[in-house]
C-alpha cells in the first residue's frame, strides 16, 4: 500500500511538473498582455519537433544520439522555439495590440491551427518515436518504482521554474516585465521599452513550453503534431486554477491538477464500486476547475476581485 502511494505520488509529480512548465507560458502572457495565447500549446509541440530535427541533423539516426548531442539539441530546440514565439507575437499579435481584446486571442487560435497543419505537412501526421533524453533506468523506491526519466524531468523542470522565479523577482528584466504588467501606459511614461519586455515574455514562455514538450515526448517516447491540444488545455486549466497571471499560482495549479487526475484514476473505481472508471479523470479535473471558478473566480493564488480588476473585465 505504501508502495502504491509512493508510486502514484511520483507519477503525479512528474505529470504536474510538465503541466507547470506549460502553464507558466499562459500565465506570463496573460499577466502582461491580459490575453490568452491559444497558440501556446503548439509551442510545446514545436519544442519536441525542433529537438527531433536538431538531433537528426546532428547524428542522422536519432535513436543512437549521445549525451552531448542530446544536450545540444535540447538547448537548440528551446531557444529556437523561443524565437518562434517572439516572431509569432510580432506577426500575429502586435498589429492587433490596440484593437479589441478578443482580436489577438482569435489570432492566436489561427496561429495554433496553422502550426499544427504546417507540422503535419512537413513531418507527416502519424505519431513518431521520440528518443529518451535521459538514460532510462528503473529502480525500486519505498516499494514504488521510479525511473531516471522521471527524476530527470523533476530536476529539469524545478531548475527551469526556479530560474524563472529568479528572473522575474531578482533581475532587471524581471522588474521591467513586472512594471509593464502593472500598467503598460505608466511603464511607457517612465521610459521602459514596452515592446522589448513583451518580446521577452514571448521568448521565455515558449522556451519553457518547448522544454516541457521535450520532456513530455521523451517521457512517453512518442510525439504527434496534435500533442499540444490536450496538454495545452490541461496546462491552461492549471493556470486558471492557480490564478492566471500568478507564477507560483501556475505551478501550484499544475501540481493540484496532476494530483487530482492521478488520485481520481486510482480512487474513482474504488469509491464508486466500479461504476465510474478511470476514463473519467478528465471530467474530474475539469469539475474541479468549475468549482474553483464558481467559488473563487480569481483562482487559488490569484488577486481577489477588486473594483480595479472589475474595470479590466468590463473591457471585454
Amino acid at each position, binding site marked *: 500500500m505504501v508502495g502504491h502511494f509512493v508510486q502514484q505520488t511520483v507519477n503525479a509529480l512528474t505529470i504536474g511538473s510538465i503541466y507547470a512548465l506549460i502553464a507558466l507560458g499562459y500565465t506570463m502572457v496573460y499577466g502582461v498582455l491580459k490575453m490568452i495565447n491559444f497558440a501556446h500549446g503548439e509551442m510545446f509541440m514545436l519544442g519536441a519537433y525542433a529537438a527531433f530535427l536538431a538531433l537528426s541533423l546532428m547524428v542522422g539516426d536519432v535513436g543512437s544520439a549521445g549525451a552531448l548531442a542530446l544536450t545540444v539539441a535540447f538547448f537548440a530546440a528551446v531557444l529556437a522555439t523561443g524565437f518562434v514565439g517572439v516572431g509569432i507575437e510580432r506577426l500575429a499579435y502586435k498589429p492587433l495590440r490596440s484593437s479589441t481584446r478578443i482580436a489577438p486571442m482569435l489570432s492566436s487560435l489561427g496561429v495554433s491551427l496553422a502550426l499544427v497543419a504546417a507540422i503535419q505537412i512537413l513531418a507527416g*501526421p*502519424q*505519431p*513518431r*518515436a521520440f528518443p529518451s533524453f535521459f538514460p532510462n533506468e528503473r529502480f525500486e523506491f519505498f516499494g514504488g518504482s521510479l525511473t531516471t526519466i522521471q527524476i530527470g524531468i523533476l530536476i529539469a523542470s524545478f531548475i527551469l521554474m526556479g530560474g524563472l522565479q529568479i528572473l522575474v523577482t531578482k533581475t532587471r528584466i524581471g522588474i521591467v516585465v513586472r512594471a509593464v504588467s502593472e500598467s503598460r501606459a505608466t511603464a511607457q511614461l517612465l521610459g521602459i521599452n514596452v515592446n522589448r519586455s513583451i518580446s521577452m515574455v514571448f521568448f521565455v514562455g515558449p522556451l519553457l513550453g518547448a522544454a516541457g514538450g521535450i520532456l513530455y515526448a521523451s517521457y*512517453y517516447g*512518442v510525439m504527434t503534431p496534435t500533442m499540444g491540444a490536450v496538454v495545452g488545455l490541461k496546462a491552461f486549466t492549471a493556470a486558471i486554477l492557480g490564478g492566471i497571471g500568478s507564477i507560483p499560482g501556475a505551478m501550484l495549479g499544475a501540481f493540484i491538477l496532476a494530483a487530482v*487526475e492521478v488520485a481520481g484514476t486510482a480512487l474513482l473505481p474504488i469509491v464508486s464500486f466500479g461504476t465510474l472508471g*478511470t476514463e473519467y479523470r478528465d471530467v474530474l479535473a475539469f469539475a474541479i476547475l468549475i468549482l474553483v471558478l464558481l467559488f473563487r473566480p480569481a483562482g487559488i493564488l490569484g488577486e481577489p476581485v477588486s473594483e480595479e480588476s472589475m474595470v479590466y473585465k468590463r473591457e471585454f
Partner: protein
Amino acid sequence: MKLRAALMISASLLATPVLAEEMTIGLSAPLSGAQAYFGNTWHNGFKLYADALNKAGGVNGVTINYNQQDDKADPREGTLVAQLFCDDDDVVIGLVNFNSGVAQSTLPIYDDCGLPNMTFGSNPSLTQQGYEYMVRPVANDLAGALLPAQYALETLGAKTAVIVNDKQVFGQGISEIFGKNFKDGGGEVLDTLAVAPTDVDFSAVLGQIKQMNPDVIYLGAVMPQLALFARQMHDQGVKATLMVPDGGYTPEFIEQAGAENVEGATVAIQVPPMDASDAIKDFAAKYQEAYGEEPGPYSIYGYVQGQILEEVLKTTADLSREAMNEALHNVSVDTVMGHLEFDENGDLKVAPSFLYKVEDGAFVLIDQM
C-alpha cells in the same frame, strides 16, 4: 418529336458503352492522422490488384475506377464520405471503413441507399444488425480474441488477467470477448478498467494494476496507445504479459514503445506471415516492387478484396448496385488467403487467425487457427 426521339436514341447509344466499361469503387479509410498507415497500406493492397486487372484490359471489358476518401478514423467524417458515395451514381460498390466505430455509423447509410460494401470493421455486432448490403471479408473479433485467450491459459499457464480498454466500439468489444474466452477457459478476470481514447498517460492505471499482479494484461485499444501503454508498463515495473489486438501488428508498435519494453508481448491478427505460402510471397514481392516498401499489416486483405471484386464483376448480371450486391453475397473465390465464402450475415465462413510474439524487436508467429 422526331428530333427528341433521335436525341434519346443517340444519348442511350452514347451512354450504354460507357456504363458497361467502367465501374467506380468507393474507398474509405483513415488516410491521415494516427491510423493513416493502416488505411493507406490497406488501400494500396487493393489498388495493386485492381491496377493489374485494369492493365490486362479489365474484367470482361469492365475497368475499375477509384473514388478514394479520407474518413480520418472519425465516425462523423465517415458518414460524410458514406453520403458522398451514396449520392454518386457512378459508385456501385464500396470498400469501406477501417474502424468498427466508423462502420457502426456508416452501415445504416449504405444500407439505406443500397450501396453494396465490403466492411473492414471487425466488431462482431456489425454483421448482427441485419444490414443487407454488407459483407465482411476479414475475421471478426470472436476469432481475434479466442487465440490469445487460449494461448494465455494453455501455453503461458496464466491464471489471472486484467483487461483495459479504450471504450471504443473496437477496443471494448474485442477486450470483452477476450475476457469471456479467458473466463470460459478457467481463468479469472481480476478487473476491467477503461481509459479515455485520448489518454497518453497510463501511469495511474498501471499503479492500480501493479497491486493486482495479474499474469496477463489484455489491452483493447489502437495505436499509439498500445505502444505508450507497453512502455509505461515496463517503466512502472509491471511484470504481466501484455496482449494486444491487431492494431499492434506494425513496426511502429516496437519502435515507439522501445524494443526492450515490448519483448514478449503478443499480437493477434488475421494476417499470416508474408512467407507463409508461395502466393503470399508473390504478393509481398509485387507490393514491394510497386510501392517501394514492405506491405502494411492489412495490405494483403486489400489484395484479397481486389480478388473478390474480380469475381463479383465476373458473376454479376450487370453493373447496378442491386446486381453487384447479389453477386457479392454469393461470391465463392480462391484467394491468396485461401478459399473464401460468406455466410447469410455476410461474415466469412472460415476465418483464419494468427498470433505473434515480439522477440528481439521482431514479430514471430507462435500460434494459428
